[in-house]
């Protein structure tokens, strides 16, 4: 039997999975790598370490028993968006990769914000102007490095391009990853001159653009040997993890939405049209030619709950995070919806969508003398979900949404799932494919191999295994909270700024 191997190069780890011809997961391996913060606003990763981790995970999966029964016929790549790695003419990295979480370009982003130039760039590229965007990061390099260094940069590539370059010697970028750089025109599918001018680079300083099912990549023979593959195994370039996660959740047409809450979170919809938000709050990335994945990312997902757990969860030595999370959720379940009238703004890490305010900060409000720890736990969960709702509310101004498909470690926890359903007042589904980013990659490969006629048909094969019904009473109650939540998030902007100045 044949199998598909997906390689998902994420922020904290690479996950390599094998799927059979029906897109069932048959095995996986993973390896982690760290993020370095040489300065408070910096987030960097070592490209060689990521490459070695990819090799290690691939090798250990492909040299396993499993691949004796299943012959790998295609390898397909997914990866985090927005990373920037400058390389020289020999393909050698000139420094560590700068990843999406890096905020060094704050001043550049603020300077561009609210200008006509900003609006034009956003309309053409679909990527909100923000320090996460490679557009801003390259501009930062342009203004903060000596000209002699900048001239040495042969190309600015992403971590995914580097891994593929190491494996094949080819410098290419798929249109999906490219569409998250802020440098790519999502309408013409070419590099966008206006954005390149702003960043200060020429088109030849970026990789050649290819569609996501591009399979002309040739694995170097050393790796064919190392992975014990046959040279017939195809390499498919693939897309970004966000687009794959949407496809892998079964959402590629209008009408449904996905909600992901892992460490960060996002709400996404798919469609043939881009969402034209005059306030530039939503991204429009390309899954493939003709399908846009639009939505909003939040910084404050599971990471906020983990913060709570670490600070107030338990005092035991060698605290086991997962155990403590579950203990706290049991406590929170005993509190009725609304946490006794307490409300939490979860902006511990500033916020992207829908506020796009790096200075936003957290707050518990409405606390009274009868509130106990369990109310705070409940309020924390609810606050994270109110934030997701504030993205969803705006998205619904542009798209009707019937069903919600949830994924990610936190969204699929029963309490989170039920509160999501109650707050949105919609039925919430959990799919059989837990890792939807890898599943999406497998669906693309299977479509490319002719198993499915197109991605739409492939997406239809995703099945839901669990669902949560909204409780109408709770929904009504939550509606009053989300109204206050949205108002407070706006109203406190000035005070957020004043507090940040003191931090």
């Amino acid at each position, binding site marked *: 039997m044949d199998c598909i191997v997906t390689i998902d190069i994420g922020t904290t780890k690479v996950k390599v999975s094998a799927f059979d011809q029906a897109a069932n997961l048959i095995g996986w391996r993973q*390896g982690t790598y*760290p993020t370095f913060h040489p300065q408070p606003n910096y987030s960097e990763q070592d490209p060689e370490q990521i490459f070695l981790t990819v090799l290690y995970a691939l090798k250990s999966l492909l040299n396993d028993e499993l691949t004796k029964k299943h012959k790998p016929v295609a390898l397909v790549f997914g990866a985090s968006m927005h990373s920037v790695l400058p390389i020289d003419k020999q393909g050698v990295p000139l420094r560590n990769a700068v990843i999406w979480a890096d905020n060094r370009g704050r001043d550049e982003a603020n300077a561009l914000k609210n200008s006509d130039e900003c609006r034009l760039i956003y309309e053409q590229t679909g990527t909100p102007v923000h320090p996460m965007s490679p557009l801003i990061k390259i501009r930062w390099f342009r203004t903060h490095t000596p000209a002699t260094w900048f001239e040495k940069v042969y190309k600015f590539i992403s971590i995914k391009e580097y891994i593929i370059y190491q494996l094949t010697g080819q410098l290419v970028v798929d249109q999906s990853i490219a569409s998250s750089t802020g440098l790519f025109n999502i309408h013409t599918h070419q590099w966008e001159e206006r954005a390149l001018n702003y960043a200060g680079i020429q088109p030849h300083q970026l990789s050649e653009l290819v569609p996501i099912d591009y399979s002309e990549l040739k694995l170097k023979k050393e790796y064919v040997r190392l992975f014990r593959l046959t040279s017939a195994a195809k390499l498919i370039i693939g897309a970004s993890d966000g687009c794959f996660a949407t496809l892998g959740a079964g959402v590629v047409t209008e009408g449904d939405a996905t909600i992901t809450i892992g460490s960060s979170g996002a709400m996404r919809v798919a469609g043939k049209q881009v969402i034209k938000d005059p306030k530039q709050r939503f991204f429009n990335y390309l899954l493939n030619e003709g399908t846009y994945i639009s939505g909003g990312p939040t910084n404050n997902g599971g990471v906020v709950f983990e913060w709570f757990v670490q600070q107030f969860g338990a005092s035991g030595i060698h605290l086991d995070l997962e155990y403590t999370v579950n203990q706290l959720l049991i406590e929170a379940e005993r509190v009725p919806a609304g946490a006794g009238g307490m409300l939490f703004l979860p902006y511990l890490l500033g916020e992207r969508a829908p506020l796009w305010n790096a200075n936003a900060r957290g707050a518990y409000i409405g606390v009274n003398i009868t509130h106990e720890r369990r109310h705070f736990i409940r309020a924390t969960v609810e606050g994270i979900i109110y934030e997701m709702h504030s993205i969803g509310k705006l998205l619904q101004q542009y798209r009707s949404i019937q069903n919600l498909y949830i994924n990610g470690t936190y969204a699929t926890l029963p309490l989170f799932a039920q509160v999501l359903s109650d707050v949105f007042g919609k039925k919430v589904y959990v799919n059989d494919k837990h890792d939807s980013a890898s599943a999406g990659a497998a669906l693309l490969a299977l479509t490319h191999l002719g198993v499915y006629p197109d991605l739409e048909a492939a997406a239809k094969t995703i099945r839901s295994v669990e669902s949560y019904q909204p409780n109408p009473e709770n929904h009504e109650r939550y509606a009053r909270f989300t109204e206050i939540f949205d108002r407070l998030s706006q109203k406190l902007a000035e005070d957020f700024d004043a507090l940040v100045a003191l931090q």
Partner: protein
Amino acid sequence: MSLLNWPIFSMTEFRHIKELIRLKNPTVRLDEWPVRVRGGLQIVCILEGKFEWLIEHQRHVLYPNDVVVLCPWHGYGSPTNTLEIGSLAWLTIEPTSFEPSKELFLGEWSAIAEADQKLMGRLLMTQAPMVLNNFKWVCDLLQRIETEVKQAEFAYQTRVNQLLDELLVTIVRQLSQQQNQRRDFPQAFAQLEQLLRDSLDHPWTVEEMAAVVGLGSTAFTEKVKSFSGFSPLNYLINIRIAEAMKQLRQTAKSLTDIALDTGFYSSQHFSTTFKKLTGYTPGQFRKRGTQ
């Protein structure tokens, strides 16, 4: 007589103990407690009162049973030079060698294994100066050392040295546990990663790595595997090869130098490991980069 010359006892029998002092201060003393480097591996216990000190430029408020651990090059004292009312006890050990660039060697008196002493040095270097809050155990140990010295009973020299070892081991364990308690494993692991990268040429063992995050080696291996997908040693090799890849392509250093710098004991060992992981020998990989 200056405050600083109030030893509990004459220390001629213990050359490695620079000071063992108990200080009761009944009145506020101006100009007695400036910020300065006092030298030695110093352990200060707060016994009574409340003290506001600058420890390596960081302001700390200390309460009874708080313990401050300082390396010989760390400075501390009151930002206003004032010694507040209260009582303190401190012990200063003079290690045979301990500098920011030199490994810790306590001296012949200590029964702690040499490798453990080196690890202790590295941990102290990265984590001290550190305030261990409400750590009465250390204050009690200090009291016992003091009693032993004063009473000079049968074989008290041996007993004092044993107590010193116990004190140091207790503190080092607490350093890494306090670290581990406050943060989750991923963060403790990130800190370990930094330490590994800072001294890649050191022949790390699993036991040493485990000690850094304050775990036993079995629990550590299990946690690392489930967290990172690698065994601890494979994770370390991964970092070593990543660094070697960088040096191969960005420097003109010889293969042997790169091998030794990244913690391989021979260029042969380096080459086989490199090939096993990357599919290329280091020489082939270097050439590939310059094509």
